[in-house]
Structures are given as structure tokens and as C-alpha cells.
């Protein structure tokens, strides 16, 4: 079983929103068996299928955090007040915030869940990844590897 599950969320057609899936692509190129890599595209609700029975999960998503574009922030759900953004007229408002809340209520959250948020510069349709997001990609990948090292260290302590 993989030590760490990494889930990328985002729409590849929408500028910096593509970062979640693109990080998954990059990690696939360098992956050993330690990581389970999941690209859920923009169907955030699908993360529920990948959370249960997992010890440690990292979710990568573009987040509106009020920081400088390109900022990368790693946080746990308890450290942040995610704003529910449910458009009550359609299912398309069901985003990561709603999926996390649902997972919490159904007691499906893994023991250790980290969200790596990237503040996007642009999420316009049909736009390219911004320079700041390209730089952020490296930071995110380093962060994922740091999380992986942490899990390995914790496993050693347990053993």
C-alpha cells in the first residue's frame, strides 16, 4: 500500500487551476511505489472515493486565500475556515469545501490530511499556466516529498 495518497483537483483548461492535475502528472513521471496519485479533475466530490481507509492524504488545489499569486500554503482542515460555496441551483457548486465537510460528517477523513493550496494568478478559461504558478509547482512537489519523508519517519518510529 502506498505511504501517501496525493489528489490533484482542478481544470486543465483554466490557467492556474490546472496546477493540481499538472502536479499529479509531474509526480507520475518521478513516482516510485510510495505515492498513490489521483487526478480528480474538477469533480471535487470524487475525493470522497479516495479518502476512506487512507492514513495520510495530501490534496492539491487552487485556493483563494488572499495571498500573493503563486503563494503555496500547506494546511490541515482544522487550521482553516474553508468557505462553503454551494450554489444551490446546481451540483456544480459542490467543491472541495463541501466534499471535505461531507467527509468530516461521514467520518471518512483520513487521520492525517493536508491541503496544499496555491493562490492562482488567473483561472480564465483557455489560458496558460502563469509564471508564478510554474514556480509554485516546484514548491508543491517539494512539499509533497516533505510529507512523504514525514510519513516514512513516523512509520520508523512506530516500527
Amino acid at each position, binding site marked *: 500500500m502506498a505511504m501517501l495518497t496525493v489528489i490533484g483537483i482542478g481544470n486543465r483548461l483554466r490557467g492556474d487551476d490546472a496546477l493540481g492535475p499538472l502536479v499529479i502528472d509531474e509526480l507520475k513521471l518521478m513516482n516510485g511505489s510510495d505515492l498513490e496519485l489521483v487526478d480528480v479533475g474538477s469533480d471535487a466530490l470524487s475525493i470522497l472515493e479516495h479518502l476512506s481507509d487512507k492514513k495520510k492524504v495530501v490534496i492539491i488545489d487552487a485556493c483563494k486565500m488572499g495571498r500573493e499569486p503563486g503563494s503555496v500554503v500547506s494546511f490541515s482542515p482544522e487550521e482553516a475556515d474553508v468557505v462553503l*460555496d454551494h450554489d444551490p441551483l446546481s451540483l456544480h*457548486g459542490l467543491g472541495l469545501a463541501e466534499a471535505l465537510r461531507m467527509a468530516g460528517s461521514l467520518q471518512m477523513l483520513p487521520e492525517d490530511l493536508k491541503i496544499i493550496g496555491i493562490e492562482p494568478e488567473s483561472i480564465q478559461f*483557455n489560458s496558460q499556466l502563469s509564471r508564478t504558478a510554474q514556480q509554485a509547482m516546484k514548491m508543491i512537489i517539494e512539499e509533497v516529498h516533505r510529507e512523504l519523508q514525514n510519513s516514512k519517519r513516523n512509520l520508523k518510529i512506530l516500527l
Partner: protein
Amino acid sequence: MSRDLNIKVHHLTRVEGHGNIVVNMKDGILETAHLSIVEPPRFFEAMMKGRSFHEAAIITSRICGICSLGHQLTSLVTTEAALGLEISEQTVLLRKLLVHGATLQSNILHAYFLAAPDFLKVGSVFPLIATHPDVVLRALRMKRLANDIGDIVSGRAVHPITPVPGGFTRIPEKAELLEIKRRLLEEGLPDGLETIETMKALAGAIPQFERETEYISLKHKDEYALYEGDIFSSDTGLIPVENYLDVTNEFVVNHSTSKHAKYNRNSYLVGALARWNNNHSQLIEEAQAAAEAMGLKPMCFNPYMNTIAQVVEAVHCILDSVRIIDKLIENGLKNEKPNQTPTRYGRGIGSNEVPRGILFHDYTYDNKGNIIKANCIIPTGQNLANIDDDMQKLVPEIITKSKEEITLDLEMLVRAYDPCISCSVHMLEVDFIE
């Protein structure tokens, strides 16, 4: 009743593209009742122009996280029509299996997460998690099964990768298909039957409202049409898919950045209810029994019953998927390569029934296999005029209710259509706790 009423349901989310309900009545006379759409301008044509036939389906599948498979399949059949690519029986069967998975997933999500909270008057799915966790878990289990059908057949459930013009780059293994069949029968079917019981219990809360309209869907001579067929209007009969522009007749209205559509009447309805009305006799027997159990009868003129038609289709998709898997295995899985040698270049028009209704793509290719012109007409756009017409009939009928009750009835009406107002990004908004 002489009354002033002013309803504005605004959704000022950051998510681009949203709908606002606007109703205005003065001295008992209805001045306005419509769904106003604020959506970014058409990006489809610009996005597709210059793309090669290998890229078209990949791009369209990413327009939307929920409708990805529908756009992808319609894109493939459109490209195949334009380039004269023949496809095998096995490809058709695998695609039909994909359509069933996508329809099952979408219909179940809508019924449980959007409509059930309405019927129970609890506002959203979240209170249901506390009161009915087993029901929410059942919905998630069914969503997962549907997703796994997509995963096995297309390589990746959300943004499928193996379906390409001319066929599939990978054919699923027999064992994988048998495992899906086992789960369809052992998990999917019992969950589907439980869903009927749940919806039966909720059916009393479905508003009694009727407005006969024109119902448009695909129709196929041999089966309940989802993947292929001709256009069928409940008013005028069959129309070839190539003549779709005669049906959609898009026109601009002031209150919507999304165009409206009309054919034989002022408006028409697409989606599960239209498919039910036009093709109900072709559903698998168990699905017809489910319809009867939940009180859905042909012809049904109540748009709120769309949800019930979706559940009926879910049962059909579960059982028909088993039939398709049996057929694939009986035929023997062949490791075919996709046929990607164009026999012509030019215009192609494709149509499928996606969960929300009939979808059209229309591409013109140059002789290098690159797109020079593209058009796409989505189901929700075709339903907008019909939603407005429903509202205009509904408001006077429920005018003695309180403003809050009227607002809820109107929101439920819009939700019953399962609108895909925006195929958009869902960005997490975070306030850090200092």
C-alpha cells in the same frame, strides 16, 4: 388575487456563470418570471479552432468536471462523422457502457444531493448526513460504482483518456468487466432498488404542477436512446441529427447571456423526462416497474418529476450495463486498434443523450485534420426557455403561498432540471484562523 411580489434569488458566487431567479408581480399582474443567466461568453468555438482531430475530444472533456464524458463522446462521434471514420461493434458497445456509467452517476447525484433535500425541505444535502447517513453513503457507493465503470472502460473516470476517434487505445480485460458485472448485480441493483423505496417515500413532497410542452430527445428503433438515434420531437416526430439547427433555433434574450432555443412551440424540454416521455416503452422491464412504483406515467407533464425519471433511468443503466457486458464477452473481446485514417475531411455533426439532455457538437475540419469551425449546443441552454415558461405558469398558480414558499418552489423547479449553468472551476476559498 391582487398582490405585489418581488423575488430575486441571487447567487453571487465567485464561480463564473450562475443563475438568478427573478419574479416581479404588480397589482396581481405578473410582469417578470424568469431564470436569468450570467455566464461568460461562448468560448467553445475559439477553444476548438485550429485543434487537430486527436485533441478535440480531450479538450471538450475538460469543459466540465461533471459532464466530461458526455462532451467527450459527442466530440468523438462528431469527429468520426466529419472524417468518415468507421467504428466497430465493440467500440459502440464499450461507449454505451460508458454512457450508462455517466448517466447513472449524474442521475443519482442529482436525485440524492440536489432533489432529495428539496423533497425533505432541509435546504441542502448536509443535514441529511446527520439524519440519514445510510442514504448518503448509498448515494456515494452508487457514484463510486458508476465512476469505476468509467475507470475500467475509459482508463480514468473523470477525464477519460482511452476513448479516441475511431475506437479505444486500450480494451478492458474480461476479468475487469466481470468484476463490474458482479458489482452491478450485487451492489448496484440492491442500491438501485433501495433508491426506488427512498424516492417513493419522498414522492408525496413533489409539487403537483403540470405544463404540457414539447419533449425533445434522441430516438432509436431498437433501444432506449442514449448513445445514438435520430432527434425526436413529441410534437413533430423524427428529425435527422444533421438538421439539428432546424430544431435548436437559438435566439438571444435580454435576461440571459446563454441563448435560448425553440422548435415547434415557444419552448421545449430536454433531459430524463423528455427521454421518458418519448421512449419509455424501450426501458428494461425493471425500470418500467420502478416508474410505476414511483408514480411516473407517460406522458408526464410535471417538470418536477424529472428526478423520478432520472431514478428510473438509473435502474435501466444498471441492468442494461450487465446486458452490454454479457454481449461484449459473448462476442469475445478483441484487441482492436482505433481506426484513425480519415476517408474525408469536412463537416460532421454528432449528438448523444447526456444526463441533462440532448447534446450537439458540430465541427468542420480542413484537409489537414484541424478544426476550422466548431459549435456546441448544451442541454441546459435548450431548457432555459422552458424553465421560464414553467415559471410564468407556476407563479400565478401558487400566488396564495408565502413569498418564501414561492421562492422555494421556484428554486426546486430550476433544480429539477439539474442545470449545468456553468461548467466551471471550483476554487476553495480559505480564511485562515489567526
